[in-house]
Every structure is written in C-alpha cells, then in structure tokens.
C-alpha cells in the first residue's frame, strides 16, 4: 500500500514538476527515509513494488531495498516528514533528475567497458625485450598482512631490527605498530635515534629491550629527546643513571620535559623527601616516572589511613622498597591484615621489613601455619628464636625449610596438602 501510494506521488510530483504550478504535497510513508537516486542496470524490476523505476524520473524507495540496490549515487537529502515547500522541492527534484541521468550514463559506460575485449595481449605471445623491461611485474609482497614475516626480508629496517634483537613477533601484535615500523626509513629515522641512545650510554642489549617495549621512540623528534635528556642531567642525575633509567623504563623519553618535571615534583612533595633521596628512589624504579600517578596516590592514602603508618614510617619503607608505591591496594591490605591481626606482628617490625609486601599472601600464610604447627612461630624481636619477616617471606622453599623451620622440604609439602 505504501508503495502504490508512493507510486502515485511519483506520478503526481513529476507532472507537477513539468507544470510548475501547484504545490507538491508529498506525504511520506514512515519507511521512506532518504532520497536516493540510483539505478542498477541489471535490476530493473518492480519486485515487491519497492524499487520503483518510473521511466527516467526520480525514484523514492524504501530503506529495505536500499541495501539490495547497488546505489551508485547518494544525493544526501534527508526527507522531512513535513510538507516541503514547492520551491525547495522542485529544485531538488530537478537536481535529482539530472544526477539520475548522469548516473545512468555512467553505468552504461561501465557496462560497455566490462563487456569489451581485453586490451592486453595473450600470455603465449612473444614480446620484445624492450617491452619486457617496461612491463610492470606485480610485487610478490602482499598488500596487507597480519604478520611482519612477509616483509622482513625486503625491508631494511625490519631486518636490521631483527639483527639488533628486537622482538618483532611481540610488536606486530600491537595495533598499528607493524605498519609504523614498515614505513620507517632506516637511514633517516632509525639510525640517528639509535646513535643518540648509544651516545647516552645505553648498551646494545638495552637497545633491543627499549625498542621491543617502546617502538614509538623511533618517531620522537630528536630535539625533544635531547631536551629531555638534558633536563634529567640538569636535575643532577648522572649520565649512567639516565642511561639505566631509560633502559628500564623505555617510555621515559616519550614524556615532555614539563611532564617529567611535574612527576618529580609530585614524588618529592608527596613523600616529603629531599631532592637527593627522591632522585635515589626514581633512579631505582624509573617506571614511577612513566606510569600513572593515581594508583600511587591511592596506595599512599591506604598506607596512611587504613594501615595506620606514620609519615616517617612510610618514607622509610619507600626508601627501602620503592616498589611499594606501585603495588596493588588489595594485596597490601590483605597482607597487612594477616601480618598484624593473625600473626600479631607490630607496626615497627613491618616497617623494618617492607619486602614482605612483595611476596604472595598464600606463601606467608602457608609458612606461618607450618611454623605454628611446629611451635616455632616467634616474630617478636625481643624473644628468643625470633624469626625475621624477610626470612619468612623472601627465602626460597628449601632454604626456609632447613634454616628457619628445621624440617625437610617433604614435610613442608605434606603440610601444605593438609591445609
């Protein structure tokens, strides 16, 4: 019903167009969304009444049919449900009509091309040497591929990177990195930056690690890189320290000077340490500068409020084990809860051995329960047979069993299976 209605509208509109007298009332059905002028030479059917070709005139068709019809032209006119004015409508209709005619012409010419005889000579014909040298040999390289394996032999950049030790198999899994590496020119892009890193003091093994982790360093501006290194040196980091920091936190040199400055100031302010101590912490754990700051803030808040450590205690712990700042909040609270409430270890002992937070809760639990079972669980430093927390948590299983628990490893394994 809609289609017949639209058909009538078609006829009415075209007749009006010719006369240009009365206003065109176009009541659109809910399905008609866009005016699209499109013709497919093969599809001149009235199948379902959806696609209506009314001679050479403009066509309204439903959105369902739109997908089936190979639309070669889209006028971009959105049908409004309101009554359009005569002026606008007639102008658009005339435009649409002319575009239809162009489209028809185009499709006819295309069809003509397809059905023509092939212009190229047959493969069995002999051609002269001159012609042979001019013919375009299609490249064996695939135009797109999901792996860098297909390009590594042809590309100088990629083969040199492999020789350096860069893990291409890991890099190609990251989005857009493979394309970026292929587009780099070895002599102009890669070599200057590698030389820059070598001048800084980075070793060859470090180069491979940096590039495997941060290939985007090859796209950084050389002046920026120099500026950032100079900034770090101005903050009294020694050149060797800077080299080691860059090796261990490859994204460091991607950060602007201002950002690096902000971060150093943040750590100095939050921890309340002087500049040389802050430098020490950052030199030992350079990813503090390249990681996010929110988790660090959260961890410090947890230490202060939930765990109840004082300012100077936190400073002491962070100086010993900077990794504490980036540890998981949940892990910290769980380990502390077990240490303090179940094992009854006091704050001051935990502050002395912050590396206990590096180990897994399960390990601490198993070992403590084993010592408890043997009757040797003594964590108070004033009492005899005192066992320090670092020996409890950090020793490997064998050493723990023989030295701390005075039992065999088999006993420990058997005990673990009774938990």
């Amino acid at each position, binding site marked *: 019903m809609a289609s017949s209605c639209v058909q009538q509208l078609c006829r009415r509109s075209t007749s009006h167009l010719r006369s240009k007298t009365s206003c065109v009332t176009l009541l659109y059905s809910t399905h008609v969304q866009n005016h699209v002028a499109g013709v497919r030479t093969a599809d001149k059917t009235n199948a379902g009444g959806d696609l209506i070709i009314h001679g050479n005139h403009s066509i309204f068709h439903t959105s369902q049919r739109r997908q089936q019809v190979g639309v070669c032209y889209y006028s971009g006119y959105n049908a409004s449900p309101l009554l359009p004015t005569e002026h606008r409508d007639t102008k658009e209709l005339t435009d649409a009509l002319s575009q239809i005619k162009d489209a028809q012409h185009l499709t006819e010419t295309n069809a003509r091309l397809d059905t023509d005889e092939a212009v190229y000579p047959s493969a069995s014909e002999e051609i002269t040497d001159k012609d042979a040298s001019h013919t375009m040999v299609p490249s064996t390289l695939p135009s797109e591929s999901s792996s*860098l*394996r*297909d390009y*590594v*032999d042809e590309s100088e950049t*990629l*083969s040199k990177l*492999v*020789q*350096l*030790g*860069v*893990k*291409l*198999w*890991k890099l190609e899994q990251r989005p857009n990195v493979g394309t970026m590496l292929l587009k780099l020119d070895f002599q102009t892009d890669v070599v200057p930056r590698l030389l820059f890193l070598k001048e800084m003091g980075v070793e*060859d*093994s470090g180069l491979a690690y940096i590039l495997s982790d941060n290939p985007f360093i090859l796209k950084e501006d050389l002046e920026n890189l120099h500026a950032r290194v100079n900034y770090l040196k101005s903050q009294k980091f020694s050149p060797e320290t800077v080299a080691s920091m860059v090796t261990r936190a490859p994204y460091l040199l991607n950060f602007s000077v201002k950002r690096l400055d902000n971060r150093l100031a943040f750590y100095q302010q939050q921890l309340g340490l002087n500049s040389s101590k802050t430098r020490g912490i950052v030199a030992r754990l350079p990813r503090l500068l390249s990681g996010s700051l929110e988790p660090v803030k959260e961890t410090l808040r947890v230490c202060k409020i939930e765990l109840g450590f004082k300012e100077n205690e936190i400073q002491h712990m962070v100086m010993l084990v900077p990794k504490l700042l980036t540890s998981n909040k949940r892990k910290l609270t769980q380990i502390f809860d077990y240490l303090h409430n179940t094992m009854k270890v006091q704050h001051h002992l935990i502050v002395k051995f912050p590396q206990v937070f590096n180990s897994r809760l*399960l390990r601490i639990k*198993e070992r403590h329960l084993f010592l408890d079972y043997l009757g040797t669980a003594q964590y108070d430093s004033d009492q005899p047979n005192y066992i320090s927390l670092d020996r409890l948590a950090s020793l490997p*299983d064998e050493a723990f069993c023989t030295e701390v628990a005075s039992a065999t490893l088999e006993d420990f*394994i058997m005990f*673990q*299976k*009774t*938990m």
Partner: protein
Amino acid sequence: MAIRAIRKFRWVEGLFCVYKPPGVHWKLVRDRIETCRTDLTLTAGSLPPGVRLLGPGRGPTELTLSASSLAAHPLVRGPEFRRIKVGVGHRLDASSSGVLVIGVGRGNKPLNDLYQMCCTRDYTLEGEFGFATDNFSRTGRIVERSTYDHVTQDKLEKVLAMLQQANQKALLIHSNVDMRSQEAYEMAVTGELGPQGKSPPILTGLRVTGFQPPFFTLELQCLNETQRYLRKVVHEIGLELRSTASCTAVRRTRDGPFTVDQALTRGQWTAFDLLPTLLAWLSVSNVESTFDTDRPRGL
C-alpha cells in the same frame, strides 16, 4: 629446531593432579599451570638453520645471516607454542582445597572420559557447632546461635547413620535398574550399582573421624556433589542434633584414581623433573573397579 620443540611439548603433556590451596579460584590454578607448561617448552632456545653467531672478535652483537630468510627467525616467528590446552576435571570452589585433576595437551581426552565416568570422590569436612550462617560456612552472615553441650559422639553417629540410610535409598532409586532383577543383584555384588550419569548428590560413605566439641571432622565419599551441598550437609547435621553447625573447611582427598599423595603443590608445577606421564587409558571396566571399592556391597 622445530622437532625438538614438539618433543618438549610431548613431555609436558599428560594427566595429573595438583593440590589446589584454599582461597584461590580454580581458574587461576589452571592458568598458572598453562603458563608454567608453555615456559617449559621455551627453555633451551634453538637457532634456526642458516643463522650463525659470530665470535666476539667481529663485534659483540653482530649476527651475520648466511643467505637464509629472516622470516623463520625466532624473533620474527615468535615462540612455537604460545598456548597449551589445559583442562580441569571436577572443579573446586574458591574456599575449598584439595585434589584437582588437570589434563594437558593430549591428556585432555582421557580427562574427558574420566569426567564422564561416575566415580566417587573423597572429602574431609571440618565443622563447628554453635552457629549457623547463610552460606553454611564461616564467611557468611550468622543467622542463628545455639548451645551444643548436649551433643555427644554417639548422637552424632546416629544422625550420620540416618543420613547414610537416606542416601543409600537414593542410590538405588537413581541407579535406573529394577531392584527385583538378576541384573541388579549382579551389579550390587560387583559394586557397580549406582547412578550412571546425572543424579542429585549422593553420599556413598560417611563417618566421624574427629570429635572435640565444638569442632568435629567428617570423612565422606560422594557422587555428583558440589562443595556447597557438602556444607549444607554439615548444616543439616547440626539441625538434626537440635543444635547448629557450619562448615569451616572442605578438602578433597581423592578424585577418582588420583589421591592427595600424588598431588603436586605449587612449587612442583614448574619442576622439570616431575614430568607427568600420560595415564594409559585402560578399558573402562578395569579403571572403574579400582576405585569403586568404597561403594557399599549388597543391598
């Protein structure tokens, strides 16, 4: 070389059991085993043919290629085995501990057969009288408290006998065999009488191994169970005794033919020496007879 890697892969395959510690989700255990096993296949890196490492005289990191494609280079190709199929048998929920059967690589097929087969599992339950919680364990919200002075060991054993009787009936009902037939008699004699396939949880054996009020320990064998059901059993035992009880620990000591003694603890998952051997899958009847010894014989 590629051949060597596949051989290494064959070494890490197999069907074995591990000890899952309490508080850890079973999936984390499975993932950890997968990474351990894939790491084992990566050890002793091998150079592909055509790449020679020149000595220190020619420069410390120079790699000269002798006319072969870089596409086969390990840094371009990546590790040969990035993932391994690791399957888990009957699962344990996070707060339970015990034997967890793991199948790696080709061991998954016998694992599947083992899973389908109806074999019993051994559990040790530790319970505590005096309070009842909403999830039947210590981590839940306490719903009720009660006294337990009147509970003695023989009262407990009476309740267990009653439970066992009910479960025995359920076993017969769900075995899908006419009780008056010769077939049923023969199956009962050999100990094969029982549900084949899905059924509600059935306890085939139940006894008290420790009683120090308020704590007590039960040992039971069951079929088609979940750990939550077992905790509910402890809760119901408390109710039957006119008191309340909740379960503090659930520990699986046997899963089919795998016992706790054979289970590997965490430190042993990476050990290259403790390589599991592929469990030779004998005929189903043979394997069934080995671990159906605890089914009650006769009717």
